[in-house]
């Protein structure tokens, strides 16, 4: 609790400190490459034959995903708090790489916990982190994935809190983490509002984002929560089917529970033991979801649905072929839902899809699932 209240106080002060905010904005502009473009996906739009589709290109941010927005913000905060060491958890490796990058930039010592199963699936990101001067600590307990990496990072943090900051990668965990991460990510929505106003002169009709912990989704949606006309859809990982152990759709198959310091929807059994999850995308493969998403699910402000592994893989290929953009398998879940929804909407409607990350990291993994057709026969 000491660690959390220390963090809460430090963040409240940093939030009001213009010097801190200017430093963050400076890095976001010159280092991360913000604002990321809002791109009109013309061929994708024509292909679907419905609403106009724009992609918010977080995949073009430095390190290839939105994760850097939060990692950089938190690492600057850690430095301001006088912490010399940063730890993080990672599933797919994107948050680990983002944190390793921010630590290299700011001269902080960095250790990243990663499940051994994920280390195998994402060997390239393990190497990237090591290249950035980070130690990757293998986690061999439980399901050997993201959830277990978070457990291990929390154990480290309680032991070393005096000099260590835990840079949690999503809008989950105990307060104030969901709040801090949401604030750092909400730049996505603020930029989108401005950019769409410039080209279309109005608000979007629908916004779609994938939801693992839910940081890219809340980042896009948050600025629009008060705009009642904007429909928001979070897409969870439907896996192979909505049955225990075969998906990560918490709103479809979960119940209220407490995991890792947050009360939210959780995939669990009747005895409160946390369930195993499955998704083709490591970044969505988590048994719980950010508590603020649970709040908006209950209030009805955000709709939640899911896309299956197969649908995500199809969207992954479709987006690559039509737009020359290989989405992260996580973001491909949002694209997959857009492919279902957009044809049902009028041509005067505008849909924004959050392209939360790029798919380079997934190419090898996806190739195992996709039987590529032989092209240019004859």
């Amino acid at each position, binding site marked *: *609790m000491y660690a959390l209240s220390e963090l809460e106080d430090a963040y409240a002060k940093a939030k009001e400190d213009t010097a801190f905010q200017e430093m963050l904005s400076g890095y976001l502009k010159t280092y991360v490459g913000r604002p990321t473009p809002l791109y009109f996906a013309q061929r994708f739009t024509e292909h679907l034959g419905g609403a106009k589709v724009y992609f918010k290109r977080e995949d073009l941010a430095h390190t290839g995903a939105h994760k850097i927005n939060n990692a950089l913000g938190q690492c600057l905060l850690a430095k301001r708090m006088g912490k010399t060491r940063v730890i993080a958890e990672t599933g797919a490796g994107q948050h680990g790489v983002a944190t390793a990058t921010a630590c290299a930039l700011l001269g902080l010592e960095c250790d990243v916990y990663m499940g051994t199963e994920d280390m195998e699936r994402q060997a390239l990101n393990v190497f990237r982190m090591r290249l950035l001067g980070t130690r990757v600590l293998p986690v061999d307990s439980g399901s050997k994935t993201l959830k277990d990496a978070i457990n291990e990072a929390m154990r480290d943090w309680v032991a070393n809190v005096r000099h260590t900051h835990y840079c949690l990668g999503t809008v989950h965990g105990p307060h104030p983490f969901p709040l801090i991460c949401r604030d750092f990510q909400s730049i996505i929505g603020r930029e989108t509002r401005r950019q769409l106003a410039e080209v279309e002169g109005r608000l979007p009709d629908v916004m779609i984002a994938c939801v693992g912990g839910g940081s890219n989704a809340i980042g896009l949606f948050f600025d629009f929560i008060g705009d009642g006309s904007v429909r928001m859809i979070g897409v969870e990982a439907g896996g192979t089917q909505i049955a225990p152990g075969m998906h990560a759709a918490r709103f479809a198959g979960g119940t209220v529970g407490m995991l890792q310091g947050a009360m939210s929807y*959780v995939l669990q059994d009747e*005895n409160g033991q946390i369930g195993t999850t499955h998704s083709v995308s490591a970044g969505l493969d988590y048994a719980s979801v950010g508590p603020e998403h649970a709040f908006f699910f209950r209030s009805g402000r955000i709709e939640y649905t899911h896309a299956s592994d197969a649908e995500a893989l199809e969207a992954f290929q479709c987006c690559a072929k039509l737009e020359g953009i290989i989405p992260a398998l996580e973001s491909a879940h949002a694209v997959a839902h857009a492919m279902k929804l957009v044809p049902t909407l009028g041509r005067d409607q505008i849909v924004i899809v959050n392209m939360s990350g790029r798919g380079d990291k997934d190419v090898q993994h996806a190739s195992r699932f996709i039987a590529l057709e032989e092209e240019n026969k004859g």
Partner: protein
Amino acid sequence: MNRIEQRFRELREKRETAFIPYITAGDPSLEQTARIVHALEAAGADVIEFGVPFSDPVGDGQVIQEAAQRALNKGATLRKILALIGAMREKTQVPILLFSYFNPILAYGMEAFARDAAKAGADGVLCVDLPPEEAGEYKAALDANGLCTVFLMAPTSSDERIELIARHCTGFIYYVSRMGVTGERAALAADLGEVLERIHRHTDKPVAVGFGISTPEQAHQVAGLAEGVVVGSALVRLIATLGDVKDMPDKVQAFARELVQAAKGRQSRR
């Protein structure tokens, strides 16, 4: 009167320190847990902490994590653990404190859990990942059923929080001797005596010290500073090393006896 409160009252009169062993319920099996409890009681344990296994024990080190996993693999559930306590109450009146994470309790239902735990004969609950600030409904349910509510106090707790935690604790206060998770440590924190003095300035409730105490020597050191000594991982590791064999409880008893002698071989601080 609640058995935990009763025991601490008796110990205070005798100026004795409580010996509080922790075991993971259901490891290696619920049947063996019952035998281990009897062995610990015979060795002189004052309160027995019943660890409720959880799939994601963020507060525990490797030894207890693995024990929890073994217990879950064997099918242990909170419901079965309460049934076991109920059955054991025919033979023993040793005070029992459930040591659990919040999610199994939440899944059970807080009201139903408090009612069933009290009915089974448990005497109190320590919920590791529930701070008193968030524990309103939980504490009300436990209070209404006469169960002690024990919360954790840490080396980083401010004076303000020491007061708050002390106010919410009934039975005793659990002081985490070292920053970090459960597990054996080579040495006690150097400032342990000092911190306990500070805590005792804020409260006259008994304080038990846990996390990192594994040897009779350490138990003896703590005995002079606090009203209770908790030993967990060292016992759980011994149970795991011995395995599911017939004389395991006897050997656990022998080790517990050494710890009891160490803890009782010194007058408590008041």
